[in-house]
């Protein structure tokens, strides 16, 4: 089976502590799929396991290939991930940071950056509105600017599936709305952990509800929005909150 991500009986966690318990689900390509749940429910762990960044038991296949068996560059062509905890330890410039997204395309040692590559990087910086700060050092940026730099790097990677862990964190409202429109119109396969419920329901094609490392429900936003399971996932009456 191709063109989708399939998880079968997946268990994963950190240092002997299991966070995801026996998860099985399917994520079709070309859709925007959001993972919702309380803090500590295992949303980020699920993204990392699917991206092949943490060890897992069971099977995770992306377009028919087992994630943990894929060579790293091939995997980077399938999946890119914007994680929640991005920091800048060293003083790279914005442009250098975005260019790192092109890593998987490089084969030679010292080949100069061709016009096409430079254009690609430029295009990604334009998309996230960071062209004016391209020469600035990332250590001197605000949280929101840094987030946009990493988003540009993610776009530069041009992977089939884009995983985002709370991508609108630190973003001002105008950039948040811009990003959400961009995601919606891109036609790409997006899997994102989202914190904000209201925009989540408007941009998602499908929603995965998670609680305590188990999948509670998978369904279309309209279906989930009115479901009692939503209340169970968040431990409060979310349905009436959203209804208001």
């Amino acid at each position: 089976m191709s063109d989708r991500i399939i998880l079968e009986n997946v268990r994963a966690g950190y240092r002997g502590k299991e966070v995801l318990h026996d998860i099985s689900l399917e994520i079709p390509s070309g859709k925007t799929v959001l993972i919702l749940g309380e803090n500590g429910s295992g949303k980020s762990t699920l993204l990392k396991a699917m991206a092949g960044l943490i060890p897992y038991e069971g099977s995770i296949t992306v377009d028919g290939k087992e994630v943990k068996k894929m060579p790293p560059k091939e995997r980077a062509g399938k999946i890119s991930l914007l994680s929640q905890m991005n920091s800048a330890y060293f003083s790279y410039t914005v442009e250098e940071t975005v260019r790192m997204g092109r890593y998987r395309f490089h084969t030679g040692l010292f080949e100069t950056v061709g016009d096409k590559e430079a254009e690609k990087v430029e295009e990604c910086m334009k998309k996230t509105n960071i062209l004016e700060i391209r020469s600035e050092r990332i250590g001197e940026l605000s949280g929101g600017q840094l987030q946009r730099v990493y988003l540009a790097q993610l776009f530069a990677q041009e992977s089939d599936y884009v995983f985002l862990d709370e991508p609108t964190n630190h973003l001002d409202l105008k950039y948040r709305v811009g990003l959400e429109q961009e995601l919606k119109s891109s036609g790409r396969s997006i899997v994102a952990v989202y914190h904000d419920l209201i925009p989540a329901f408007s941009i998602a094609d499908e929603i995965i509800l998670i609680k305590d490392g188990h999948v509670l429900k998978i369904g279309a936003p309209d279906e989930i929005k009115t479901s009692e399971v939503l209340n169970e996932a968040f431990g409060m009456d979310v349905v009436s909150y959203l209804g208001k």
Partner: protein
Amino acid sequence: MKNKWLKLIILLLLAAVALSLAVGLGSVSIPLPEQFSILLGKFFGTSGNYTDTSATILTTIRMPRAFLAFLVGGGLAVAGVVTQSILQNPLASSYTLGVSSGAALGAAIMTVMEISIPILGVLLLPTGGFLGGLLAVLFVMALSRKIDHGVSSHTVVLIGMIVSMFTNAIITLLSLLFIKHEHQIISWTMGSFNGKRWYHVAILLGADLIAIILTMVRHRELDALSFGDEHAASLGVNVTKVKMRQLILASLLTGISVCFTGTIGFVDLIAPHIGRKLIGATHKWMIPVSFLIGGILMTLADLIARTILSPMELPVGAVTALIGAPFFMYIYFSRRNKNVG
């Protein structure tokens, strides 16, 4: 880009100046024109205005010493660049990670046990140094992981320091238990370029070249790793393989340097820091630039060690520590305030 080439060329010129000063200054002064005539005389047999004594001092004492200092400084600086990148920690260096003292212990054990492996010949001590350094860094990393799941910078540096102190204590103990080798072992803990010959230079040049080329080849991976293991992996880097290979190369650079000259701290911490300020963080530029800065700093430190209290000679490790320790504090506190290296 042009700007970066210019900076690299200026550094090359500074390196030439530092080397020329190091071979020219001392109890017998050999000015630059005389250095040229001696070298022309040696290589092309041309006659010049110099004495045999200055020729001998230049070519058999000062030149190997200065070149060795340069290569040790450069090698340690590149080792520093590598460890800082793969640990995402501008405070990491072979010295703060315990690689240097591990290497000194490795070499000391080889010496006191009077181990002889004929096939290794003069490479025996470097091998001991390399293995000792590698074991030390692996131990530090394993212990840091066990204690602190997040392997924070501070934990790694702290454990590195503890392992360093512990290893140094064993070295001191060995020097007392094996009085015959006391002098050599003690000199390792302080570092000195005294009495070094061309074959030391040749071995280190070979090791530096191999390790630096293999590191340059991975400049993109080092860039990606600077952002953290997970980030690098999601960009497509084979994190475990690259990290392991680079740690081995850093230990090779440090181990061989240390077993010839002893532990000399701080150059591997300072040189990458200056390099990053000068040319930015990308490793394609950082590696050669830090190599040159490390070489220049070490050559000058040795010149100071040799001449400042002449005829007495200071251990070069003391000179680098006198300048380096305050510098380390400066980076530590400015980083704490800014949170970026």
